[in-house]
């Protein structure tokens, strides 16, 4: 018998023995013929069936029927998949021990199912049950199993693991008397397991349920300035698998969505997968958490904090750099201190503020332009940090001398002071200890930091509260003022080493960090966190969901990083001042090893499949097979054909219904693939294009003409166009083409409104259309020729400027060749271009007017240029032009006109520049 399969009524299977008999019976019955009265039978006499079809039921139909019958018999016999073996229950109470930490969260539903089953079983056996959660040890009480089942839904994993103190508490809380223990283990090795196991075994037998899947944890991402390094670790080796890590964050609209994904490869037998995720800084700063896709556990989530962010800092120096004195640059030390941890922006203030930096540092900037002031003040009020450094310029300026300046925290006394220099008394001053309640609390001022010059604050009433760092003699070194949501901080020394040795010390960097000017890339050491209280903002629950921290108490800084997680210290985001630090569930030190149980303990997997009765499926299969049999029987007796015809009609109908859809779509847009292919073809190289007219022959001439022109251009100039394209105004995008040739035919359909909109957009955006009436302009732009009339109709809705015949000094006459007429197959007709501005005057002694306007959007003529340009694939002219040598000369001039035209399109009015005058005059021999 197949393992994992049992039958409720196995004796029914004996009926299967009757199947061969059924085979014999069924096989003899041919499908019945239809009887038809038909006079034409006389003509049928003697005709034999071409296909020798046996009148017995075909074997496959028999097989089908046998299968149906067999499926029915087996289905009625009541097969059950994964039948549960019956086990005698020991006659003692049952204690369920749950690890209850985050490692079990991934399999929590399975746990609950197992627990439900166990409780149901215990309920049937009338055994009292007690539960003990190691993550929250409480004294277990034996109660009826049903009561526990009702509480199952409220059971959730905790976001921490049981610690040894918890285990001790649990051992102490164990009830008296014998009981059987069922330990729902999360599968991670912990040192207290053995102790607890020994304690439990003293009371009775212990069984263990353990998940077969190794616990996975996402380690805190390390950010090295380029990429975020992601590490996924699992407890115990397993098969190779791919793990996707998803970065969640808020989009600009404030909606949380997936910002990035990275798939990591866990090798077979390996326990760790690494991968780098490279993101733009803006996106990276938005990340709120990383999560292993598909794993619901607090261990699979890490929260983003300041370590992921790189602040954008705008550096602005007042003085131009004195060349060669790099070390004296007011920004040099700032750059050195900030570059590893922040994105530095340098440039003009008005250029930088729109980028919305986190911090603006003004190093020795005295005066600001009013516009700059206003912008800077608005930005600061909006939450920016303005960090100013003093310096000779600031000291010399009258900024904040008499009234308090908005962008200065204090008023300054004129001149400042210098101590310990060659011309002054006293020694350089060192720093006083930082006040406990200030932002620098906990930092130790080193003795080698000395200040020899500074600017001095006026002793205003508000001064005391604004000072956040002092020198040993009590003079303010750093002052700060809140301004709106932001703040203004003034360092009373320079940002370079001229006035003090502060920028040379590590303290400088720490102070910048504390001011949030530098971002945290490494986690701060415990010592640096001492004395601070960190307030939880959002915390994780065991399943890895973020919750609002609510009224959870703050955590001392030294405990935040190292203390084991527990009810008092939950994983989540903690905040102190401006800084945010995440406490992660798992980090590199978290031990992840599979639990090892002594051989005497029975360990069952979690993935035990529940009992599945299969009878219903088999009966359904039998019915389905019988339905198939009906169809098959019809097919065998040849009566399925009408059905097939119906189906065919349906399919055909659907196909017909489906086919016009792309056609219709083409009307408006075009299938995206087509459009893409068209765009690629049109933009890969310069492509000349002509408008598709209603006349195939004209289209061919235009195509051949542009081919000839393209070839000429490739041979003579650096313009090397690809093969020309035909453009359908209704369908194709025009923006790709610098130049459109539009031959006019009287039978051409008028473009639609959408096409006109496209054409006007094209003309305004700098495209050029060469209209060619191809009628030698016999009518002189009257409406006498049908082509001319058509041109008038077509051009009426177009956005065309006033026109004039090409003047002698038009740039078209000299963009490449020097030309005076523009023949095609016909010569002599006027060619019209955009009129020169009325104020264009010819300057005495200059060969042409200064017409520095754009490219004419249209060129209109009737010389049938395409026919003159037309070439076959081998470069032979397709249509005669003129007679003999004169004709060839005319064709040559036509080509020159084409070259000039394309040059005009591609280079604009560059040849209209007066710079070219001398060269042109020389060429012209004047």
């Amino acid at each position, binding site marked *: 018998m197949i393992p994992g399969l049992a039958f409720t009524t196995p004796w029914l299977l004996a009926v299967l023995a009757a199947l061969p008999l059924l085979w014999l019976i069924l096989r003899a019955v041919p499908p019945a013929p239809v009887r*038809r009265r038909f006079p034409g039978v006389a003509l049928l006499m003697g005709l034999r069936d071409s296909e020798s079809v046996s009148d017995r039921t075909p074997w496959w139909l028999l097989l089908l029927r046998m299968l149906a019958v067999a499926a029915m018999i087996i289905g009625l016999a009541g097969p059950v998949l994964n039948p549960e073996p019956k086990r005698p229950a020991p006659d003692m109470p049952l204690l369920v021990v749950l690890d209850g930490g985050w490692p079990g969260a991934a399999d929590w539903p399975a746990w609950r199912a197992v627990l439900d089953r166990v409780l149901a079983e215990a309920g049937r056996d009338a055994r009292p049950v007690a539960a003990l959660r190691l993550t929250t040890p409480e004294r277990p009480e034996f109660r009826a199993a049903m009561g526990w089942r009702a509480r199952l839904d409220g059971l959730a994993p905790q976001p921490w693991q049981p610690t040894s103190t918890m285990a001790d508490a649990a051992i102490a809380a164990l009830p008296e008397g014998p009981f059987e223990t069922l330990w729902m283990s999360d599968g991670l090795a912990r040192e207290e397991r053995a102790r607890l196991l020994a304690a439990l075994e003293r009371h009775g037998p212990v069984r263990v349920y353990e998940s077969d899947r190794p616990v996975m944890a996402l380690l805190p991402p390390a950010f090295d300035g380029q990429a975020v390094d992601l590490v996924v670790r699992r407890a115990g080796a397993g098969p190779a698998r791919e793990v996707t890590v998803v970065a969640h964050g808020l989009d600009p609209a404030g909606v949380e969505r997936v910002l990035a994904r990275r798939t990591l490869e866990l090798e077979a037998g390996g326990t760790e997968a690494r991968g780098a995720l490279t993101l733009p800084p803006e996106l990276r700063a938005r990340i709120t958490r990383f999560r292993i896709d598909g794993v619901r556990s607090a261990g699979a989530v890490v929260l983003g904090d300041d370590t992921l962010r790189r602040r954008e800092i705008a550096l602005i120096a007042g003085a131009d750099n004195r060349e060669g004195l790099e070390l004296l640059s007011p920004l040099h030390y700032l750059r050195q201190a900030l570059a590893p941890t922040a994105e530095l922006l340098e440039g003009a203030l008005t250029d930088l503020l729109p980028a919305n930096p986190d911090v603006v540092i003004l190093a020795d900037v005295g005066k600001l332009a009013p516009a700059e002031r206003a912008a800077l003040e608005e930005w600061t009020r909006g939450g920016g940090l303005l960090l100013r450094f003093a310096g000779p310029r600031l000291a010399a300026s009258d900024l904040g001398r008499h009234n308090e300046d908005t962008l200065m925290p204090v008023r300054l006394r004129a001149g400042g002071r210098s101590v310990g220099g060659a011309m002054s008394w006293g020694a350089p001053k060192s720093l006083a200890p930082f006040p406990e309640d200030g932002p620098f609390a906990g930092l130790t001022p080193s003795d080698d930091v000395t200040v020899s010059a500074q600017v001095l604050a006026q002793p205003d009433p508000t001064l005391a509260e604004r000072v956040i760092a002092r020198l040993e003699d009590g003079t303010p070194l750093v002052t700060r003022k809140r301004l709106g949501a932001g703040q203004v901080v003034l360092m009373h020394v320079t940002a370079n080493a001229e006035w003090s040795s502060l920028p040379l010390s590590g303290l400088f960097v720490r102070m910048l960090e504390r001011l949030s000017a530098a971002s945290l890339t490494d986690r701060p050491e415990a010592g640096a966190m001492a004395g601070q209280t960190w307030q939880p903002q959002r915390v994780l629950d065991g399943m890895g969901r973020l919750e609002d921290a609510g009224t959870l108490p703050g955590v001392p800084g030294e405990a935040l990083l190292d203390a084991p997680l527990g009810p008092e210290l939950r994983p989540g985001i903690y905040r102190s001042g401006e800084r945010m630090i995440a406490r992660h569930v798992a980090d590199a030190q978290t031990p992840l090893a599979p639990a090892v149980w002594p051989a005497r303990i029975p360990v069952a997997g979690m993935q035990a499949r529940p009992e599945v009765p299969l009878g219903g499926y088999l009966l359904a299969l039998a019915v389905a097979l019988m339905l198939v049999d009906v169809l098959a029987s019809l097919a065998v007796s040849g009566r399925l054909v009408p059905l097939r015809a119906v189906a065919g009609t349906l399919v055909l109908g659907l196909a017909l219904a489906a086919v016009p859809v792309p056609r219709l779509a083409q009307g408006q847009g075009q299938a995206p693939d087509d459009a893409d292919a068209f765009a690629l073809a049109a933009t890969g190289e310069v492509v000349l294009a002509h408008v598709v007219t209603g006349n195939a022959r004209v289209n061919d001439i235009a195509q051949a003409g542009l081919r000839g022109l393209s070839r000429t251009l490739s041979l003579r100039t650096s313009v090397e166009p690809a093969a020309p394209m035909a453009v359908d105004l209704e369908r194709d995008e025009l923006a790709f083409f610098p130049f459109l040739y539009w031959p006019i035919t009287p039978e051409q359909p008028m473009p639609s409104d959408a096409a006109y909109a496209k054409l006007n957009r094209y003309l305004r955006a700098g495209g050029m259309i060469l209209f060619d009436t191809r009628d030698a302009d016999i009518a002189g732009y009257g409406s006498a020729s049908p082509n001319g009339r058509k041109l008038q109709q077509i051009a009426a809705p177009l956005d065309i400027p006033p026109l004039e015949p090409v003047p002698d000094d038009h740039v078209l006459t000299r963009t490449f060749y020097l030309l005076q007429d523009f023949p095609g197959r016909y010569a002599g007709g006027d060619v019209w271009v955009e009129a020169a501005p009325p104020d264009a005057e010819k300057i005495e002694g200059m060969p042409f007017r200064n017409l520095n306007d754009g490219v004419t959007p249209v060129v209109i003529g009737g010389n049938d240029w395409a026919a003159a340009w037309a070439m076959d694939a081998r470069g032979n002219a397709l249509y005669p032009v003129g007679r003999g040598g004169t004709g060839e000369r005319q064709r040559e001039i036509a080509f020159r006109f084409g070259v000039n035209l394309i040059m005009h399109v591609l280079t604009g009015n560059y040849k209209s520049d007066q710079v070219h005058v001398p060269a042109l005059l020389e060429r012209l021999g004047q």
Partner: protein
Amino acid sequence: MTGQAASLRARAELLAAPLPPLLARADQLAGIVTMGEHGRRRAGMGADFWQYRPLQQGDSARDVDWRRSARGDTRFVRQHEWQVAQTVMMWVDRAASMRFASADALPSKDVRARLLALATAILLDRGGERVGLLGDGPAPRRGRAQVTRIAQALEHDEPGDYGLPAAAGMVAHGQAVMLSDFMGDFAPLQEALTAAADKGVRGVLVQVLDPAEEAFPFRGRTRFQSIGGSLSHETLKADALRPRYLERLRERKAALDGLARLTGWQYLCHHTDDSAVSALSWLWRAVDGGGTR
């Protein structure tokens, strides 16, 4: 006595009951086609004036129409239209194979054949011809009563699956109309037509077919039976037979046409879903034309 007569009358009426509709429809059909007594469109013996023609050598003087001749110098002979009664014998296949209609909306083949035959008979009778039925039907005669007799005779079905053309009663140099589906044996028909041609009988073959017999719209495993049940053919794939059946039908039609050409007859294939009028007018022209030739 009276009881006997009453019963005879009742039986006669019963017998005649189907007649009026058929007769009426045939009358109606005939009314569409033609227009009373008609001549032979040639000079000959008859009551109606045909033409004057100049006196020729060999004409006797008493043939001269003096009244006409007196108006000029030329002597004219008055000619009368040749009016002679033709004898048209008809055969309508009334065997079982004719009692077939593939759809309820279509008349069965024998209904159509009888209708055509009777309408032709009415037309011929109006034209002054003598009409009779071949075989044991009424001998050729004129008059309305003959039409009724023919109608009555047509009511009787013939035994057998496929009708055999009756050659008996063929009048030498007369005309004949044969309506059947000609699905049965070809040899008897050939014999009958050859014999008729030997007697100088010209005529018309009208093959009446049901659309289903032309299209053979059958599929699947089928057992075909003739209407009488004497023939049967079973096939597993009826649709596979179709091309060969159609080929045979085409051959049969070609054979009929060939036979008709050989014997100087005319052949028409008529389908029951076509209009009866067109068949009748063709039939009428064919019979009439046979007379004028």
